[in-house]
């Protein structure tokens, strides 16, 4: 509870003592938005950590070897992530549902275990030291970028593109018969999400003095975490995943007493939301009440009274 008390009574100290947390929330929100775009267009893609890794490694390597300015590094990381997004998206987007999810898991793990952990230039399993990281002032950059990203995504979902994505999500066949170029719009969503994930990854690398190729960072564990942002928050509106990122990232600070058991809290939270509030925290409608089979039904038809 100290967390909230400090937030409301002493915001300045709160800001100063939680800078890294706030920056991480900002980055996770950008990545959650990348997840939101694919989910909004009806595709269950878990490829985000792979594109994050591409963005992060590209920008840090450019900085290490060529000492180029940060903006250029991030731009290069984003461009490469987008290009790989096109290459991966072309074959993968024919798959649907769980199959797409599995194929993208294959992509991120093949990239991490097969490429990143084996190339001398990426430091193999040891990771990379990021000498020009700026964890302290990076937060302003992150928050500005988040605002820009959210504004753009908001405009996109309001426009023709968003309408097409929503149509595809609700019924792909119907969208096709309405003359919507389903393959093209899916591809746009996938590449845009790759670009955003690459952007988030490059920003995250800028905040950290060390690029760690671990599972928590660019592997399946991270993919699951990003998916949980979108599902907890609700993926019908772009605010949902951001709220999800906020909640999941702050949970360890809210339940400080249960810090060791934080994954248990997160797991219970995931199950509770998906069972009782399937539309997510931000979403229309109330709680779904699941009645056990043995629970007496109140609306049972009464036996007709004799008479």
């Amino acid at each position, binding site marked *: 509870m100290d967390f909230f008390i400090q937030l409301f009574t002493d915001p300045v100290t709160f800001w100063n003592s939680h800078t890294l947390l706030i920056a991480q929330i900002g980055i996770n929100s950008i990545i959650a938005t990348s997840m939101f775009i694919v989910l909004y267009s009806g595709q269950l893609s878990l490829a985000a950590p792979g594109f994050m890794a591409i963005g992060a490694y590209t920008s840090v390597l450019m900085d290490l070897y060529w000492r180029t300015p940060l903006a250029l590094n991030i731009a290069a990381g984003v461009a490469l992530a987008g290009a790989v997004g096109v290459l991966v998206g072309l074959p993968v987007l024919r798959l649907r549902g769980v199959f797409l999810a599995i194929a993208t898991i*294959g992509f991120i793990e*093949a990239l991490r275990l097969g490429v990143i952990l*084996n190339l001398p230039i990426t430091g193999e399993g040891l990771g990379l030291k990021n000498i020009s990281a700026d964890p302290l002032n990076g937060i302003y950059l992150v928050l500005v970028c988040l605002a820009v990203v959210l504004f753009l995504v908001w405009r996109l979902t309001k426009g023709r593109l968003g309408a097409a994505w929503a149509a595809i999500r609700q019924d792909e066949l119907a969208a096709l018969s309405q003359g919507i170029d389903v393959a093209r719009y899916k591809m746009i969503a996938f590449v845009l999400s790759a670009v955003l994930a690459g952007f988030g990854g490059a920003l995250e690398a800028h905040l950290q003095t060390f690029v760690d190729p671990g599972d928590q960072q660019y592997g399946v564990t991270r993919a699951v975490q990003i998916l949980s942002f979108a599902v907890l928050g609700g993926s019908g509106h772009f605010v949902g995943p951001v709220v999800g990122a906020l909640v999941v990232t702050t949970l360890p600070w809210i339940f400080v007493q249960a810090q060791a058991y934080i994954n*248990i809290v997160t*797991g219970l939270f995931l199950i509770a939301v*998906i069972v009782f509030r399937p539309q997510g925290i931000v979403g229309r409608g109330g709680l779904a009440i699941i009645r056990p089979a043995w629970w007496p039904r109140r609306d049972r038809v009464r036996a007709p009274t004799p008479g």
Partner: protein
Amino acid sequence: MDQQLLNAVFIGSIYALFAVGYTLVFGVLDILNLAHSAVFMFGAALTYSLVVNHGQPFWFASIVGIAACAVMGLVIEHVCLRPLRRRRAPPIAALISTIGLALIIVAAVEQGQAGTLFGWLWVDGGNAVAFPAGTVPNPTWHVGDLTLEASKVVIIPISIVLMLVLGYVIRFTQVGRGLRAVAENPRAARLMGLDVDRMISLTLVISSALGGLAGILFGVALGNISPYIGRDNVEVRGLAVIVLGGMGSVPGAVVGGYLLGLIEVLTLVTLSAIGSSSGSSARGGVAFAALFLMLVLRPQGLFGAQLRERI
């Protein structure tokens, strides 16, 4: 090389045993049960704990371990799947709820220290441990230049017999017919008078018991038990196995398991032949690249001819 091929068969058997449970649930329910790798780990961890911390004999500990995993299957069904089925939620919802349960199981074991909340279950925190020597009699034979360890050799008959039994049950018994009916069309099965919920519970119990057994065998043969063995060794590899064999196909999962074992060992051999030191991670990289290519080129898997027919 022969020794390596033998290793491929050992590890392939464990992959197959694990993936059979995975694919059974997918075949019947069209749902990926991502808690399966946590159940795999739970079986190994509980058995280890019963033997080492509670002083039980190994055979008793492994029976309790498998039974506990079967109960865990019921937990998965009642907590993660049934409420969602009642509401006709999309399959992605079950993906999330089983991930949630997997997080809980792994975190519970991971936090197990002597004297804490989960101390009865596990005392080694996030560390990797192995069964002390002599827990299981482990005679070693030398045939030619091959080394045969009993703890690894027994895996092959155990998994083959179990998979044959499972195949028989699914093909030729009343219960198996029920399972296939539910897999084909749950609604029609219910109209024919089948207790669909009971069939699904049964599927989860069988699947989780097999998963737990695979975990125990893994722990004994590879001498590596930690809260992360499920996540690091079989979670994504299990996906690769069922994709290689064809999602939902039990024979496919068996063939896929051995195939993946073979792919990994061949990668290892090739890499060490060209003098690369990066064998262990590249092994996973090649396996997942195979998964990716398989889905892209032949999404129905090797046994794709029977795409419509499940289990």
